């Protein structure tokens, strides 16, 4: 019975084989010590790569790593690859352009020009809709793309953090979708059922959202801790249970909009809505500020707090954590409660923010599933997640413009998002395609390959 040993060993070393895991706890202990008296340094140290190991100057590092398989290059090239595949999809789905390929040997210019116009226009609109539109004449129009991007970014930051936090603790939270659904339900109920003064009302609604998500995270957490039931299965099941609960709830008396016969609830009171940032014309709301605060809080929790240390220890090696006297079961429950609360906060923004004010069956769109992609793209690090959410928010915002101006369906954005994550999840593939220099590329720290 000594045979089984090599196999689990090698599989454990595979995903986390960069040598950092043994180092991380040591530096964390120091970190927690220094953090007691000095919280300012926390901000500077939240980018873990900078904090953990001494490195040469940034400029040299940049040049050295430019064409190496490092995190940044791989991410950028993944984006490029995804856009190339997206371009191919656009071309093959356009009958007019496709027709020119029938005689490409006779007149290649037709095919090339047609394809170029189609693809470049679409991607130009993607850019104009998300970052900046050179044709904008008013201030509002110039700010509008950014505002849209931030509006879509905010909830994704929360769901991304939710998934990332669980990943760090060794759990795969596929349930962000369901937790966000419960969050949006409770936030909306608090938003139109409770007669509270402004300010307090908003606070209560936001907290209700967090509570809804936390409860929905607690269930798989306690089941995992008590019975060993795999959280992947349970969170998937809970996602669907929450959706059916939502569709049932919407049409109940007191919840359904009395003036409507279709499935839509009453609207959240104005006193419970997140204030807008740049005036009434633009949709960006305070949610994005909350998102930044949440990112900071999660970074602090993970890297500076005792709980975060336990969480990462459990994620890296539960047996060792247990031997060291940590309660693995308690940590599992806490991880899922926190992850659920974050996802619930993300969900609450879908009805307290500017995207919608009433519950509908599709009110939270895909933010939970997108959160998984965001967490992976952000390499399960809090600030990385925030940046990844920004990219996804931009794609979403730009996708809207691409749909209305170029007639390219918004679904293309889903394809792009999925492809980006597929490529970054397999850095070896990107490395092979672009002949990148080998580097200590940060592999995805999702050493979760434990099966059910």
């Amino acid at each position, binding site marked *: 019975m000594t045979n089984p040993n090599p196999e689990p060993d090698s599989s454990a070393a595979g995903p986390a084989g960069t040598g950092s895991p043994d180092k991380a706890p040591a530096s964390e202990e120091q970190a927690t010590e220094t953090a007691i008296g000095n919280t300012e340094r926390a901000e500077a140290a939240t980018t873990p790569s900078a904090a953990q190991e001494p490195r040469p100057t940034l400029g040299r590092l940049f040049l050295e790593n430019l064409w190496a398989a490092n995190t940044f290059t791989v991410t950028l090239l993944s984006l490029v690859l995804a856009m190339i595949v997206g371009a191919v999809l656009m071309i093959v789905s356009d009958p007019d352009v496709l027709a020119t390929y029938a005689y490409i040997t006779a007149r290649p210019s037709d095919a090339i020009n047609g394809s170029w116009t189609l693809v470049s226009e679409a991607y130009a609109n993607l850019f104009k809709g998300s970052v900046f539109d050179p044709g904008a004449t008013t201030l509002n129009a110039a700010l509008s793309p950014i505002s849209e991007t931030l509006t879509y970014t905010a909830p994704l930051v929360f769901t991304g953090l939710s998934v990332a936090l669980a990943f760090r603790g060794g759990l795969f939270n596929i349930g962000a979708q369901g937790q966000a659904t419960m969050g949006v339900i409770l936030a909306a109920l608090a938003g139109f059922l409770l007669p509270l003064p402004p300010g307090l009302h908003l606070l209560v609604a936001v907290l209700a959202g967090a509570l809804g998500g936390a409860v929905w995270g607690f269930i798989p957490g306690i089941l995992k801790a008590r019975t060993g039931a795999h959280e992947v299965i349970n969170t998937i099941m809970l996602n669907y249970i929450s959706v059916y609960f939502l569709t049932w709830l919407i049409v109940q008396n007191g919840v359904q909009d009395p003036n409507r016969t279709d499935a839509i609830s009453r609207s959240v009171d104005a006193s419970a809505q997140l204030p807008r940032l740049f005036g009434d014309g633009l949709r960006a709301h305070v949610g994005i500020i909350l998102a930044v605060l949440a990112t900071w809080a999660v970074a602090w929790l993970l890297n500076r707090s005792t709980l975060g240390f336990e969480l990462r220890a459990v994620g890296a090696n539960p047996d060792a954590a247990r031997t060291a006297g940590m309660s693995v079961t308690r940590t599992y429950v806490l991880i899922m409660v926190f992850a659920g609360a974050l996802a619930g906060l993300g969900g609450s923004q879908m009805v307290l923010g500017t995207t919608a004010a009433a519950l509908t069956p599709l009110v939270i769109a895909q933010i939970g*599933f997108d959160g998984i992609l965001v967490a992976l793209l952000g390499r399960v690090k809090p600030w990385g997640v925030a940046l990844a959410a920004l990219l996804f928010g931009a794609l979403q915002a730009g996708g809207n413009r691409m749909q209305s101006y170029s007639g390219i369906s918004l679904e293309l954005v889903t394809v792009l*998002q999925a492809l980006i994550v597929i490529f970054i999840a397999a850095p070896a593939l990107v490395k092979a395609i672009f002949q990148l220099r080998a580097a200590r590329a940060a592999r995805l720290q999702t050493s979760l390959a434990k099966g059910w």
Partner: protein
Amino acid sequence: MSTTAVPDVAVAPVDEGFWTRTRKVGVVLLALGLLATVLFGALATGEQARFTLSEDAAGAALEVNGTVGAIVFGLITLAAGGAMLARLPKRWFMPLLAVGLVAFVLSFLCWQVSAAPAGQNFMPLVNIVRGTFLLALPLIFGSLAGVLCERSGVVNVAIEGQLLMGAFSGALFGSISGSVWVGLLAAAIGGSFISLLLAVFSIRYLVDQVVMGIVLNLLALGITGFLYERLMQTDPTRYNSAPRFSNWEIPLLSDIPVLGPALFRGNIFLYLALLLVLVIHIALFRTRWGLRTRSVGEHPTAADTLGVKVLGLRYRNVIMAGAVAGIGGASYTLALFSFTKNMIGGKGFIALAALIFGRWSPTGALLAALFFGFADQLATYLGAINSIIPGQFLAMLPYLATILAVAGLVGRVRAPAADGKPYIKG
């Protein structure tokens, strides 16, 4: 296999002391029986609850007075629960559980049918059984795809994506070619395309299999949705009007009451699904391929030592699984509906639930899929008779049942030991 359980992180201590599994389940059954006897009995009306053996109210029927039926079946559940607490031998566990649960459902039906609006106090069994099979079809294909994948050690969360891709390519190429058979072939290829990606990325590039599955679901959703809007919506007659398989009636067998019309007047997909369950069951447990597949799923190192090509076998099985799921997707577009965006709508995840509920075996998956199909069909029926039970809660049933199953409340569920673990030849 006892050693493989050790590394598991939070495996619950096996029930010890007074609250054994039998006792817990017995208490649950007692509670259910009490609920059925008291609540269902009180709510049921004195109307006759008729279970007709046809598609409408006419014809032969099994009849029972609503109140009497609800109470009697409730008492049976109570008795099953009581028997379970009375320390009967272990082999009685499953039969007692089955009897208890079935009686509970019957008690529930007696109440519902008898309380239906006047003139609707009947339940057409033919419709129910046929609907059950119809709704279970994609689940059967999907969970068989899961069995093929996971028995060889690759977690398949991408069933949803495989079904969707199959449905889409079946519709697209079926429409373009005008032939159902081309559509069927294209559906199988479409499904295996998603699975090929799953195989390459999880076997070759060692990407976490659950992560990959989730991402592939989104990819399939995106690609099919995109091409649907670009092609099918702009020119539905050309791209989205696939021919459909007609129903084949099997002589003699189709005259069996209730089961005949439901089982032997179906389309090719129904026969194919049942055949596949049989074939995969036999292949998995009676052939050399099956032995190798199972050994690769349980202990790849040992299999490799004995000369089994672990990675090759995994590739092959995963791709086959995709083809099976793809055909399952086509059971929508080449028989029932034209393609719409996200038309699978979570069936892939119910199939995953069926796979787990059926404990990774083809026959178990079939039974679980039928159970989930029945829950789905019951929801439709109750909606039609204006039941006070909201359909959404019945729709939750498969998911709740799965949670209970994996939490160990209804027997222990154990996945293949190497499921989800990449194999690195060392």
